[in-house]
């Protein structure tokens, strides 16, 4: 037991986490299973942001567009090509990854606000592209039906538990893979580029190529998260990927520490909790419809501002500082 490498420790941790989720998923009601699926999906999306922004230093405001690419790819493979849902999710990941590769090559020269602006433009424009091509279904979108749970699980196995299992499994496997990646040579290379691009180049790292790889991997992960999102809402349409989603993901990443993968699940929980909190606030305080509609967005923005002001490196660092 003492002779474990960190890789094996990590694998064990993920298996243990998976087992805990399995048992927890059994105990809780459908509502929590449904919310749990969203937490898993958001955690995955936040992981993609952490990889891109926290580790390789590229700020992307357009991850909702990348999720959309994966989502449409997945939906079309189920709806038009009638493929198995698992294959559809893999296609979602790969399509978004390839898209990210192409995009990465285009924006590899850009840094900081210029990269942010380009990705922002992408996030705003991409969903409306769906209206231009009839195959993408326009505003109505394409149906993504992952089907009912296999009969062998019995009558009591609800649709939401099935969603929870699929999301959690996909998220666990993918985050484990990212975690391995970030602890490998690539992770160190990403961080070198983030901290000082010129020194990294001097050290012999091909900065352009590494940035593109980071972008491609991050996009692929975002594509998978997009595929999971539309599975949960049984269909994809442009309204599922508004600009506010990109900001929410960024907030989730910053709030839990953008430099470290450890907080992703907490980030996912925060993103699912905010609309719930807004919901109960509005029922208690009451208020006009405009208030109800904008409150979640306001909370997300407020949280982002507070996090950046008081805990820019995540709550972990804040606690360490207090201990001293």
């Amino acid at each position: 037991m003492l002779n474990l490498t960190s890789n094996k420790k990590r694998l064990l941790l993920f298996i243990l986490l998976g087992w805990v989720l399995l048992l927890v998923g059994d105990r809780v009601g459908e509502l929590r299973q449904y919310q749990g699926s969203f937490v898993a999906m958001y955690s995955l999306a936040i992981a993609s942001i952490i990889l891109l922004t926290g580790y390789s230093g590229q700020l992307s405001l357009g991850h909702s567009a990348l999720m959309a690419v994966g989502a449409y790819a997945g939906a079309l493979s189920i709806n038009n090509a009638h493929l198995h849902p698992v294959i559809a999710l893999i296609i979602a990941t790969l399509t978004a990854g390839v898209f990210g590769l192409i995009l990465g090559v285009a924006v590899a020269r850009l840094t900081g606000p210029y990269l942010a602006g380009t990705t922002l433009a992408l996030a705003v424009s991409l969903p409306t592209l769906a209206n231009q091509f009839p195959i993408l279904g326009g505003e109505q979108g394409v149906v993504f039906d992952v089907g009912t749970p296999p009969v062998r699980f019995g009558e009591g196995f609800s649709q939401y538990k099935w969603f929870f299992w699929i999301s959690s499994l996909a998220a666990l496997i993918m985050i484990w893979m990212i975690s391995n990646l970030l602890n490998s040579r690539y992770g160190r290379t990403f961080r070198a580029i983030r901290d000082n691009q010129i020194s990294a180049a001097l050290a012999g790292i091909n900065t352009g190529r590494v940035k593109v790889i980071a972008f491609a991997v991050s996009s692929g992960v975002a594509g998978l998260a997009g595929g999971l999102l539309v599975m949960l809402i049984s269909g994809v349409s442009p309204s599922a990927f508004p600009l506010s989603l990109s900001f929410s993901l960024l907030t989730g990443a910053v709030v839990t520490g953008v430099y470290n993968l450890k907080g992703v699940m907490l980030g996912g929980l925060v993103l699912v909790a905010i609309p719930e909190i807004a919901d109960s606030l509005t029922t208690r305080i009451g208020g006009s419809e405009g208030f109800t509609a904008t409150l979640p967005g306001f909370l997300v923005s407020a949280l982002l501002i507070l996090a950046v002001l008081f805990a820019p490196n995540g709550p972990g660092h804040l606690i360490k500082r207090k201990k001293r």
Partner: protein
Amino acid sequence: MIRNNRMKRYSIVSAVVAAGAMVLSTLPAQAADPGVTATEIKLGVSTPLTGSAGLAYGKVPGAMKAYFDFINANGGVNGRKIKLVVRDDKYLPTLAATQTTNLVLKDNVFALVGALGTATHSKAYTAASLASKNVPDLFVNTGFSGFGNTTKYPTTFTVLPSYAMEAKIMSKFITENFKGQAVALIAQDDEFGVDGVNGFAAGKLTLANKTLYPTSSITDARAKALLTGLSAIPGKPVLVLFGTTDVTALILKAAESLDLVGKFTWIAGSVGGDANTLLALGVKPATITGVLAASFFPDAKDSSDEYVSQFMKINEKYNKGVSFDNTVLQGMNSAMLTVQALRAAGKNLTRTGLIEAVQNKGSKFASAGLVPLNYSATSHIGYNGYWFGQLNAKGELKPFGGTLAIFTTDSAAGAIEASTYTRPALPKNGIPTNS
């Protein structure tokens, strides 16, 4: 190596234990249906309250609630008060999906009533697993004929005549009254608009021009471009608008600014044809005059109609500050049908019981509609007909040609027939006493 094997064994054992725990644990069986207590029935609706569609249809839940409040003040249904939970979906399919799921999972409603929108509700129905949960989906506020398909939507009951029915009857009306004029159609590009297109085909109407626009894509500039293009059609073409009220208003206002109002004979489809909303959205009364529209209700301004006058009184008392129009009339009518359905389902209220009650007794429910309700064991289709009228500057719809001529048909290739239906009398004081 030994350590790795031990690790492997531990992982395998724990996986087996986990699988065993999962297989052996069973979820507790559902005792009673959610949303029903001894004193309360909880109903839910996902509908646009904000956004452009909210401006046009935001009055519906308030109207339903007003009628339910009226019934609650008069004894409720079998001793239970009705509570309506309203969630805003901004006419967006994805939001409708999550809100409907929230209604079922979080708010634990007994049944859904008056879900609004074709694209929104078709998405929401699947996402919220309404079929497998057997959640009654009563009197949906959409005319998409697909919702009458009981294999796909087993718990859904339509109330509005379908868009296919409307288009068929419209085809007959246009062919008889506007011979020789070209017909152009501007429709929303989703199941709602396509349903209409199919109806026009079934009604054997040739369209000189057909424009399908993606939802929410019509801007003032686009409307002007469309109208300029259509104005090239010679004569006085008939222009059919098959979209939501906000889009109909946009197109009419664009016509005003291009001075093209007199160029066309305007027909506003039922979804976007509420005159009061159009006036509220800025369309000039002079533009509205002469616009043709179809309805299956008496006009909301016709206080000589017993249903209209009773609903007006309820609106006065329980929906203060909201002006009474066709949207409010429709909402209250659906609420009245809902109350009758709940009564017919009996004191021992279950979801299955409610569905059966509408199937078996729904066709006899009292309602303001001037066409019959077609509920039966094999049909979940509500109203199935329309009459045509012309709007005047006050926003009133008066029968075309002076006499009320109602036609009924189906959503497929069935014939269009003149209707001889007389509706049931209004229950005393508007309070149903059926069982």
